[in-house]
């Protein structure tokens, strides 16, 4: 009886110990990375939040009270409008482009994606200035519009909301196309065949099968473009002509004009909270955060 029992637990203690040691080893392997992430990502955020709540006299909400100024409300509204608009245009332009790229042969698709990616290799500033040159009053586009008789006087295409949106769409488009392309590439062509076989016209198959199956890519693209747009600085600063005030510009102003770390931190914290809230809302609405991360 006793023998049977001890035989039943043969080597149990050592095996448990070995399993534990293995886990410890894994943990120690990931420790430097965890430390780095903690140090580079989390620590500055914590520091930022801390700064926004203290001043020389200790705890304060003054930095947040300051945000009650209607100027910040207008900025927030502009920021969201622009981010929504840019995201929407990126979807409208990016979806067909990604679709075409996904249908092309490997070689042609590579060339097309290269063109899509090309802007990534040019500096943001250069691209933004290029739009300035094209869109301004005596720029190429206005020249053509007038030469071809579409307008008499130059249109105001830049130094406003329109110009900012155009410039930002150009910069954000690759962020929309790449995840869309990846998602579309992973759609088995048999799904579309099955749809056709079951009686779906190409249009029906596109909307009822292709679009839903590309949603994870669309969600990832929308999320990336929207979040990046919320925090965009350079392009609105140059193409907005001062009128298009983004949240990030308010942060910059707090630092360069008032040199007020507390105020800038409070603005940063608000942007962070809004961004996280948007991500949360988005994942609730579509469940794509997990999908985009490769889960189910």
């Amino acid at each position, binding site marked *: 009886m006793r023998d049977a029992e001890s035989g039943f637990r043969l080597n149990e203690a050592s095996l448990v110990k070995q399993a534990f040691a293995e886990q410890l080893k894994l943990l120690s392997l990931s420790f430097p990375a965890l430390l780095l992430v903690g140090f580079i990502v989390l620590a500055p955020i914590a520091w930022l939040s801390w700064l926004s709540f203290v001043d020389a006299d200790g705890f304060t909400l003054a930095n947040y009270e300051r945000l009650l100024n209607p100027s910040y409300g207008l900025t927030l509204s502009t920021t969201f409008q622009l981010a929504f608009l840019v995201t929407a245009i990126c979807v409208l332009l990016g979806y067909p482009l990604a679709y075409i790229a996904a249908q092309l042969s490997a070689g042609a698709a590579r060339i097309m994606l290269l063109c899509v990616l090309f802007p990534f290799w040019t500096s943001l500033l250069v691209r933004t200035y290029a739009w300035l040159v094209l869109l301004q009053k005596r720029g190429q586009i206005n020249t053509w519009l007038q030469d071809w008789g579409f307008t008499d006087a130059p249109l105001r295409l830049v130094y406003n909301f329109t110009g900012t949106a155009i410039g930002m769409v150009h910069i954000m488009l690759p962020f929309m196309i790449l995840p869309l392309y990846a998602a579309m590439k992973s759609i*088995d062509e*048999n799904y579309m*065949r099955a749809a056709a076989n079951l*009686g779906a016209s190409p249009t029906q198959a596109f909307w009822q099968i292709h679009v839903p*199956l590309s949603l994870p890519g669309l969600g990832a693209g929308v999320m990336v473009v929207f979040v990046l747009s919320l925090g965009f600085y350079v392009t609105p600063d140059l193409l907005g002509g001062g009128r298009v005030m983004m949240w990030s510009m308010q942060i910059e102003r707090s630092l360069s004009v008032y040199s007020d770390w507390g105020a800038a931190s409070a603005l940063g914290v608000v942007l962070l909270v809004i961004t996280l809230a948007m991500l949360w809302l988005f994942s609730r609405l579509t469940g794509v955060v997990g999908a985009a991360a490769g889960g189910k």
Partner: protein
Amino acid sequence: MTSGPLRSDGVGSAAALPITVSNIRKNYGNYRALDDVSLDIHSGEFLTLLGPSGSGKTTLLMVLSGFVRPDSGSVRFADREVVLLPPHKRDIGMVFQNYALFPHMTVAGNLAYPLKLRRVDRAKIAERVEKALDLVQLGGLGARRVDELSGGQRQRVALARAVIFEPRILLMDEPLSALDKNLREQMQLEVRRLHDRLGMTTVYVTHDQREALTMSDRIAVLDKGRIQQIDPPQALYDNPKTHFVADFIGESFSLPVTICDGGATLFGHPLHLPHKITGSAPHFLVLRPEKLTLLPEHPTDAAAGINEIKGQVRQSVFHGDSVMIYVAVRDGHEIALRVPHRGKVTLPQPGDHVSLGYGVEDTIVVPATMPVEGGMR
């Protein structure tokens, strides 16, 4: 088409359509995927396209479904020419190799999809989905997500989806290849039963000759873009017309024979043949292991109707229900015979000299290559 619930009354082949394929050619660059293929598929028939990969069987199926546009030729469903018709207007069911169940829909959603496209009203759809699920023994699983199903269950859903709108033609592209052996064999019977019950014309593609033999009314064997032979399973097995067919269907061992004046000699001994051989091209004698018998050590005499071959046992392999005995014959050739396992029977041991006999009707002599003039209808 009729839009009543799935038939439950036996072979109601009134709703099935015959298919006529005439002179279909399809080239991919210099590669001939389909080389002047013609084929009649009878109404309500279960026809299998069998061949190795690259033989053109899948391409032919894709031509039928409309996903591949042939270079020339005609496909008719009954009297209607469909070769120019886009896939979504062909109104034929299809089961894909990897099922192609839409992952963003539930099981019921997948089944309802073709009905919704046909604007069947909602109450009817629910009823027919239930019925279809019952048909493939998945009753109650309609709300499941596709990725929650096992391989066999997905297979059944794919099948149900392909037949729920009662197409008069059903195409299947190696539908069982992803299943393990036991499940595959079970599904083979189920698919065949479903066909018998619903009665539509079925074209089934596989590279598995056993599967083809098990399920089909007729089998079309394809190689290099051409149909080598089309016959019912047993005829195909017993009377292969070419060496390729003989080799591809069932187990067989080939020995070269010499042709002379319509007769044939094996290693110099004339063979008893069921019929005369035309032409003088190289031929093979094809021997199937189960058709060989061990002759007594001292044969009375080579009785009429029996051919005999001598050799030395090299190896015997136990298969449970039978034993395979590999025998070396002349010129380095090897054949084998299968002996049912009945226990207590003394079998020849390696090294023993044996005589093997086979009937005249089992003496299959086929040309090494397909005769040029071979009509393939």
